[in-house]
Structures are given as C-alpha cells and as structure tokens.
C-alpha cells in the first residue's frame, strides 16, 4: 500500500472515530436524560406513599406500606433508591416499617445472599444496605465480612456493624446484636494488620454505645496496642466512668506511648476528678513528650483545682508543646487558673521569663479575642489592680502587665 493511501485511510479512520465518539456522547446523554425523566415520572406519584411509610404512624402508614409492597417490578425499581435513601435518615416506627417493606420485597434477603457474592462491589453494597437498614439479625454475617479479602468490603462491613449493632436497630435478637457487633469490631483490630481503618471501627463502636462497654473494658487488656488505644478512645467518648480506674492504670504503666496518649485523652473526656493524680504523675519530665502533652491537656479538662501547682510548674517546660498545653489548660480551669496566669504574667508570682511570656501570650490572646469568660476577666482585672496598687506603693517597682 502506498504511503499516501495509508495516510488517507488513516484520515478517514480518524474522522470516523471522531464522529462515532461524538455520536456516542450524544447517545449517552440522551439515554441518561430519558431514563432519569422516566424514573422521576414513575416515582413522583409514589413519593407521598413513601413519606407516609417513613413517618410511620397510624393505619395510613400500614396501608401505604402495603401499597408499596404490592407494586410491580418496574414501579418498585423506580422507587427503591428513594426508599434506601430515606431509610438511613429515620429512626423509630418509620424505620421499622421501611425495613419490613424491604423484607417484604425480598430486598433484605437479597442483600444477605449478596454478602457472599463473587463481586466485591456487590458484597460491599449489600453490607451498606443492611447497615442503613439497621438490620440486627445480619450482625453475625457482617462480622464474618470483616475477614473478607477485599479491603473495601471490610471497611463497609465495619461501618455497617455500627448501625446494625446499635441499640435502636431493627429485627429480632436485638439483645445479642450490640455485644456481638462490639466483639467483632474489636477483634478486627487484632492481628498483624487491622482489617479495617481504626477510626471507622472506633466510630462504629461509638454508635453501638453503652452495650459495648464491657467488651471495651476487656479490650483494654488486649495484647495489641491498636486494640487498647481504640478501646480507650471509645470509652472516653462514651463517657464510661467505670473505666476510669483501668485507664489511669494504663496511662502510667502501658509500654506503648500511643496507647498512653489515648488513655490520657480519654480521662480528660471522662472528667473524673480522681484521675487528676494519675494525670499529674504522667507529666513528669521522664515521660514521652506526646504523653505529657495529652496529660496536660486532660488536666485542664478534668478541672481539678489541685492540678494548679503542677501546671504552673510546667509553664516553662523545656518542651514547647507541653508548656503551651499547660498555659491553655490553666485557661480552661476557670477563674483560679486565669488568676494564676495573670499573676505569672505580671510577675506577681515567681516564675521564669519563658513562663511569663507564655502566660502573657495566652491571657492577652484570650482577652483580645474576647473568648475569656466574665469570671476570668474579673480575675485578670483584680490581679492588674493589685499589681498597680503595689506599684504605686513602691515607686521603684517595675511592672510588666
């Protein structure tokens, strides 16, 4: 074939390709627009029925549910996405009715079957649906999915367990579900590598809530540091004060620093005053900086006045982060803390230059930004007045206020 013929053939081919692609774009768009319009047209009149079911009150809701359950395949196909969308947004009777509707249409059973499908996307979609439905009976199967080969499936399963294992979930066997979900979630973090991202697991444990507390407490003694720190994080956010003693022990004695950091943070969230002594002990210079920072921050949150002295001593710590945290913690301790800061910054209390600068910065920032509560402002003014009074009595005194 001569070169020219080759070129011409190529040109013809290219032009045909461009035309074909352009037509393909137009066709794709037309099909999509028409399909969307048709789905909308079918779904529109059914929407009030769906809302009726979701609201879930009275005989109208049952009638509407029956009507939706009796729809033909095409009608159901158009309304199913909306049903699933609304399902994730309601609780209570409406949720129960919607799940019963899905069960009546075989969607729930289909999803349970799909949990063992060959395609990872189908397994994950099924898990997501069961989670959105808050379907407690599926907890065992979802727990099994945590050992799936595909990381995305494991992630979705972890997320779904949080909702399926939550106390408000739907279906029989609800008593066992939260405990089983918590156990499955915690065991997914065990081993060499976590099966699902730890913060997704933690979030799900949070959703499971108080029923997970016994499992979490037991997990504080697990051999893997990841399990311990996740358990500590969740216990702190759940406000499980019964765990305070165990957490205090871990803050001081756990071999892994990351775990100690989380335990300190959790104690701060629990706000149990008895934790203050353990937290104070965790601020010694021998401890790792991250642990000291977390402990100092938590001392501010716990709000125990006996920590004032400890925090004062840390204001000029060699670790900048620890000293900053100490200043912020004092601010958070309310009037006594602010008074101390004001005294330090005006050099009324004996302190090093670094401490003075830090205290001054924290107080002035808070005052300038107008985030200082009135009680704190009163303290600052009182200290200033005191300093001025002393200065007027001793003319040679230098005041840095």
């Amino acid at each position, binding site marked *: 074939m001569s070169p020219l013929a080759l070129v011409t053939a190529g040109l013809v081919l290219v032009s045909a390709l461009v035309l074909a692609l352009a037509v393909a774009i137009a066709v794709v768009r037309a099909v999509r627009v028409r399909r969307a319009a048709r789905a909308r047209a079918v779904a529109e009149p059914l*929407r*009030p029925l769906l*809302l*009726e079911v*979701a*609201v*879930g*009150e009275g005989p109208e809701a049952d009638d509407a549910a029956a009507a939706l359950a009796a729809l033909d395949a095409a009608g159901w196909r158009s309304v199913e996405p*909306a049903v699933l*969308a*609304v399902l*994730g*947004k*309601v*609780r*209570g*009777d*409406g*949720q129960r009715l919607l799940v019963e509707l899905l069960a009546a249409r075989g969607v729930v059973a289909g999803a349970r079957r799909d949990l063992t499908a060959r395609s990872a996307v189908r397994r994950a979609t099924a898990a997501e649906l069961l989670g959105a439905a808050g379907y407690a009976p599926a907890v065992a199967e979802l727990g099994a999915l945590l050992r799936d080969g595909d990381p995305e499936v494991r992630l979705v399963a972890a997320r779904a367990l949080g909702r399926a294992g939550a106390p408000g979930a739907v279906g029989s066997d609800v008593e066992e579900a939260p405990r089983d979900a918590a156990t499955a979630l915690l065991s997914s973090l065990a081993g060499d590598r976590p099966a699902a991202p730890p913060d997704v697991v933690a979030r799900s444990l949070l959703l499971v809530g108080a029923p997970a507390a016994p499992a979490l407490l037991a997990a504080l003694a697990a051999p893997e540091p990841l399990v311990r720190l996740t358990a500590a994080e969740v216990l702190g*956010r759940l*406000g499980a004060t019964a765990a305070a003693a165990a957490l205090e022990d871990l803050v001081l004695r756990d071999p892994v620093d990351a775990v100690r950091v989380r335990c300190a943070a959790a104690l701060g969230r629990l706000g149990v005053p008895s934790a203050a002594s353990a937290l104070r002990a965790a601020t010694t210079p021998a401890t790792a900086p991250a642990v000291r920072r977390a402990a100092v921050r938590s001392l501010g949150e716990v709000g125990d006045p006996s920590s004032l002295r400890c925090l004062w001593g840390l204001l000029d710590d060699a670790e900048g982060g620890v000293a900053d945290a100490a200043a912020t913690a004092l601010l958070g301790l309310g009037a006594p803390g602010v008074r101390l800061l004001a005294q330090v910054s005006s050099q009324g209390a004996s302190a090093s230059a670094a401490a003075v600068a830090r205290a001054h910065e924290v107080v002035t920032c808070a005052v300038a930004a107008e985030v200082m509560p009135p009680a704190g402002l009163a303290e600052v003014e009182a200290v200033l007045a005191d300093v001025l009074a002393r200065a007027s009595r001793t003319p040679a005194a230098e005041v840095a206020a």
Partner: protein
Amino acid sequence: MTTVLVADDDLDIRELVAFKLAQAGYEVRSAPDGVAALDAARAGGVDLVVLDLMMPGLSGLDVCAELRREPATAELPVIMLTARAQDQDVATGFAAGADDYVVKPFSPRELVSRVQAVLGRARA
C-alpha cells in the same frame, strides 16, 4: 395557624419533616439553605424553625446566631436537627441559642413532640 420553617439542604429531610408537621396540623415553609432560611425567618409569620447544622452557604450555627442577634427574631424558637451528636456539638448548638437539639437519624414522631413542647414553652 402555627407556621414552622424547615431549613435543610437535604430534600428528603425537608419533605419528611414537612409531611409529618403538616399531618400534625402545622403550616410548613421550606428553605434549602441558610440564606433562604434567614430570609424566610425575617419575612415574618414564622413561629418555630427546624434547622440543619451543615448547610452550604450559611451554616445552621450562623443562622441561629444571626436570628438571636436581631431583635425581631431573638425570641424565635429554634430546634436543631443534625447528624452531629457529640457532646461538644450539642454544647455548641445550645450556646448558639438553640432551644432543642435532635440528632439524625431521627424519629419524625419524636420531632413533632419536641416541636409541640418547645412551642408550648415559648407561649408560656
């Protein structure tokens, strides 16, 4: 006729709440974002606002703060309806001036009860 304003960027939530409130005998107005919510509240005739926190444009917290700042709407009852459930978020919501705080996923029946309670307190 008691009028309730529902502000949420999620169409499903708006329609759900509107449906339930209409069933309970209230007149309902909807707003898809913060700016529209403020305009509707300022326009008057609104007795209670059901407000979502995370909306594009102006967030629910900003709307609430704005309402509290203006004398005409300072006493307007506000119920926050949001997915954010942590203690910190609840505290922030109340600090911004909300009268009640409902967490998503929510029970429509419970929401109506709270609406009735808040309206009852506001009238007293």
